[in-house]
């Protein structure tokens, strides 16, 4: 039989050498396996030809199908973490394979694990790492990662050695160094396991980032300890000198800092490259993955910490890559990364289960296994407590008892330990099988038992949960104010503090780094506050449409002008109606709202006429336009985009301005002069692009208070203050919207549908941002009247439409 990347591992030299060749059935075997070829075979079964890729694809399929099956039962997944389920499944499948073949055909081999399964998970972690939180707690994380891991390794190894000396374990062929080696590989908290379990537990972000950061950063320590002890074992216990020990310590710094630098260098390269990919949008996502993967392999090649490299590559490049690449590429990167990480995680756990079904490796030693379990738990608790006590002297936000409990309990071991132990050389370390068995038991214990019980524990201890809250604009603003205030206080008091450093970094970033690494267009709009603001407006726009649909006012979008054909009752939301609703369509596109009629067209089956498109255009007029609309031209190499940012801004500002008449400081007496009206009557035929149509455009900035008087001037043609949209004026020709297909016409003219002219769409008053709070007394605004007690279709004086 064969195995995925099987074969005997050769002696590692320096780093984690993976020289396990994949045994592939060569062409010679294939042809000989076909038997005597004496006639022409029309069809032949060429299993050996496709064997390897087929098996791989099949396993991936099995893993994914398993995931589907698990999630069918919500009750089960609520209690049992997915990782545990996958391990059990793996055991089951392994059992089947073994029963069929009596040979362990499939195992999780270190090669496959370290080269293909681990990088996506770590890259995903790094790319989506909340940087501010991470660097804010970096001191804590480093302490746990470095000191904590060394502590765990030392204490576990030495204790096991001590117990071994007493003879309880029986006579094992293990020396002190072997114990230390084992300690070092079992000590490390595993990022894959931590992610898998903590994902379902939802502890607060500080706690999560500490445990997770620790699991990522301890790789350097693990690598160094593992290599050091392994080479010591090779050299022989007697020959180890002080120099070697010193070299070990030095190698720690080299490995960790070197790995980090490699990661940062590749992040720089990646950011720089994405700056120039404007014309090759289609392959943009590819760069992210390739360059990150290269950073991993490069660090591996130089025997530095590969996990650190790819983590920091992800962490450092986040900001610039997200700024440079297009919206669609960003979505692609996001989804692909998540998919690969999730897939890799699934395969890892499943194969952990399968690999366990291998009687050849099983060596049972009750004392050893039991004691290992006890020691790693106990020493972890002790380590966490001591370190937290030290840290609390320096931390602003203290870590309480509950946090410490979660941290100790959340120190899970996982596949990294297993892969490392599988990498050991049988010839040098005689007790390899014992180690492997113990590691399997430990991993299973932590993932299954601790994974199962951590959720109830967290609930029982009432751990502060993460708050999934919409980022409030005020929060962002005040947060920004805080940063400045705090760094000012630090400046004034002459201290170099946290805020001072962050301030310096932000300045450096803005002045130098962003200029080099970010596209010029991206530099402008990268302020986070602006992003939040845009998002909020988008959300409002969507809920506006949804609300309108719900109340039936946007019925004209859904039903055609002839009432007979479609008679839909909108008062109750129906499941089937969801498919076609505009808001559904808007919502489903993650991040890129497409109000393009043509795109929507393809999804709907109802009858369209100009009316609908006109109304759509009306909507589009007033809502913040999405970042891109892409036309469906099939082209391998291009996605054509709509570049009218300037227009976006205009609509944006216009919309905001209109909302503000409620505040005392900006009382808008809508001052329209007669002149405007005349111009409009004249220009009806022409589509002049100016903002006269929405006369609100001029908010006097000098003295808002004095606008009160303008109202009384009486030169408004409309008696009421309000937006005077000449297009809505009663008497003019109705054929406007027929003559000019709206999407070709000027943006500024609003051509209402027939129905809209009679019945202005309701606009609900119960969302927060777009609703004006107070309008003038005489306004006949649809907002206000829409929420009146009676729900009657009303004919408005068409002069005023605040939408």
């Amino acid at each position, binding site marked *: 039989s064969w195995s995925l990347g099987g074969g005997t591992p050769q002696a590692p030299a320096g780093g984690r050498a993976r020289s396990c060749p994949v045994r592939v059935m060569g062409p010679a075997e294939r042809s000989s396996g076909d038997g005597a070829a004496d006639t022409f075979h029309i069809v032949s079964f060429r299993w050996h030809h496709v064997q390897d890729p087929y098996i791989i694809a099949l396993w991936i399929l099995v893993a994914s199908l398993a995931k589907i099956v698990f999630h069918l039962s919500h009750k089960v997944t609520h209690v049992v973490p997915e990782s545990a389920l996958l391990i059990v499944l793996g055991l089951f499948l392994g059992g089947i394979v073994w029963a069929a073949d009596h040979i362990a055909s499939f195992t999780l081999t270190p090669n496959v694990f370290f080269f293909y399964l681990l990088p996506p998970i770590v890259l995903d972690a790094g790319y989506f790492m909340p940087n501010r939180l991470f660097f804010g707690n970096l001191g804590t994380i480093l302490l746990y990662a470095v000191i904590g891991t060394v502590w765990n390794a030392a204490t576990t190894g030495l204790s096991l050695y001590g117990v071994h000396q007493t003879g309880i374990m029986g006579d094992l062929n293990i020396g002190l160094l072997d114990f230390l080696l084992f300690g070092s590989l079992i000590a490390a908290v595993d990022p894959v396991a931590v992610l898998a379990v903590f994902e379902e537990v939802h502890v607060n972000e500080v706690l999560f980032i500490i445990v997770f950061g620790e699991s990522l950063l301890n790789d350097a320590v693990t690598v160094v300890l593992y290599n050091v002890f392994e080479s010591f074992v090779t050299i022989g216990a007697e020959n180890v000198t002080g120099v070697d020990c010193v070299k070990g310590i030095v190698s720690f710094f080299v490995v960790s800092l070197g790995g980090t630098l490699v990661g940062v260098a590749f992040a720089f390269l990646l950011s720089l490259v994405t700056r120039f990919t404007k014309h090759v949008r289609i392959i943009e996502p590819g760069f992210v993955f390739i360059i990150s993967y290269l950073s991993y392999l490069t660090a591996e090649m130089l025997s530095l910490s590969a996990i650190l490299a790819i983590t920091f590559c992800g962490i450092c490049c986040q900001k610039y890559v997200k700024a440079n690449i297009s919206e669609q590429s960003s979505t692609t990167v996001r989804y692909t990364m998540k998919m690969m990480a999730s897939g890799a995680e699934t395969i890892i756990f499943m194969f952990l289960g399968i690999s366990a079904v291998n009687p050849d490796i099983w060596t049972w030693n009750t004392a050893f296994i039991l004691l290992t379990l006890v020691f790693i738990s106990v020493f972890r608790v002790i380590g966490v407590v001591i370190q937290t006590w030290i840290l609390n002297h320096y931390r*602003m*936000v*203290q870590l*309480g008892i509950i946090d410490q409990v979660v941290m100790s309990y959340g120190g899970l071991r996982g596949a990294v330990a297993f892969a490392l132990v599988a990498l050991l050389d049988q010839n040098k370390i005689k007790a390899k099988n014992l180690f492997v068995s113990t590691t399997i038991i430990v991993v299973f214990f932590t993932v299954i038992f601790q994974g199962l019980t951590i959720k109830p524990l967290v609930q029982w201890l009432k751990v502060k949960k993460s*708050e999934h*809250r919409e980022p*409030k*604009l*005020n*929060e962002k*603003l*005040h*947060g*920004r*104010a*805080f940063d*400045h*205030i*705090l*760094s*000012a*206080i*630090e*400046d*004034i*008091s*002459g*201290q170099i*503090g*946290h*805020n*001072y450093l962050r301030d310096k970094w932000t*300045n450096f970033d803005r002045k130098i780094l962003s200029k080099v690494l970010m596209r010029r267009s991206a*530099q*402008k*709009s990268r*302020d986070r*506050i*602006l992003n939040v*603001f845009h998002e*909020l*407006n988008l959300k409002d726009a969507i809920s506006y449409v949804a609300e309108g649909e719900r109340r039936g006012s946007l019925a004209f979008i859904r039903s055609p002008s002839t009432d007979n054909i479609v008679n839909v009752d909108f008062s109750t939301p129906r499941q089937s109606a969801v498919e076609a609703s505009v808001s559904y369509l808007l919502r489903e596109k993650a991040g890129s709202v497409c109000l393009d009629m043509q795109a929507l067209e393809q999804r709907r089956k109802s009858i369209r006429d100009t009316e609908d498109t006109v109304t759509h255009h009306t909507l589009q007029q007033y809502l913040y336009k999405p970042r891109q609309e892409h036309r469906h031209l099939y082209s391998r190499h291009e996605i054509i985009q709509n570049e009218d940012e300037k227009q976006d*801004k205009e609509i*944006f*500002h216009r919309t*905001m301005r209109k*909302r*503000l008449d*409620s*505040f*005392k*400081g900006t009382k808008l007496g809508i001052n329209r002069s007669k002149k405007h009206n005349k111009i409009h009557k004249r220009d009806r035929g022409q589509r002049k692009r100016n903002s006269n149509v929405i006369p609100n455009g001029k908010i006097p900035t000098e003295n*808002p208070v004095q606008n009160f008087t303008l109202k009384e001037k009486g030169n408004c043609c409309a008696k009421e203050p309000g937006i005077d949209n000449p297009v809505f004026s009663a008497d003019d020709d109705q054929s406007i919207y027929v003559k000019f297909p709206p999407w070709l016409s000027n943006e500024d003219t609003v051509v209402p549908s027939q129905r809209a002219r009679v019945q202005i769409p309701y606009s609900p*008053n119960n969302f*927060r*941002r777009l609703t004006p*709070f*107070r*309008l003038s*007394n005489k306004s006949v605004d649809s907002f206000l009247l829409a929420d009146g007690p009676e729900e009657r279709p009303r004919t408005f004086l068409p002069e005023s439409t605040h939408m």
Partner: protein
Amino acid sequence: FLSLFLLLVTSEQIEHLHRRFKQLSGDQPTIRKEHFDNIPDLEFNPIRSKIVHAFFDKRNLRQESDGLADEINFEDFLTIMSYFRPIEMNMDEEQLDHFRKEKLKFLFHMYDSDHDGKITLQEYRNVVEELLSGNPHLEKESARSIADGAMMEAASICVGQMEPDQVYEGITFEDFLKIWQGIDIETKMHVRFLNMETIAQCH
């Protein structure tokens, strides 16, 4: 309040602050606004004027009167600094609440520049424009729009549904507290060096 603060800060830290005070004031007993110009890093802070202003704001200095002081002495300096002390583990609910209110009041005074107890739209706009002035690519228009949006958000939190005739005057301190309800400001608004060690008061 100040004495409580002094009880909880080491003499070492007070000494350090005193040295700094002397450095800023040029060995004089009081500091004026101009003395803050000597701090080089403060130049780049976008809301520097508001922060310096806060030091001289009589409301922050716990004086009964209103308006701006011309100069402050070391005790006043410490008073302002005391707004930034971190919370302690052993504080009870009432203390925490008081603590929080104090910090929020400091913030409120910073925004409310005309001392009328309300943050009006114009004042809010000022603050936001200043805050975002550090970003050269952000136009004044956009900054203003953001301020407006934030104000509306604040109003919707504080007042909820407004009647058509209602006018929203501005954010009062109670409203301000409401905005900050879910967010734990105590853990965010402090400076590290004012870490607590329980040693006797300064001399």
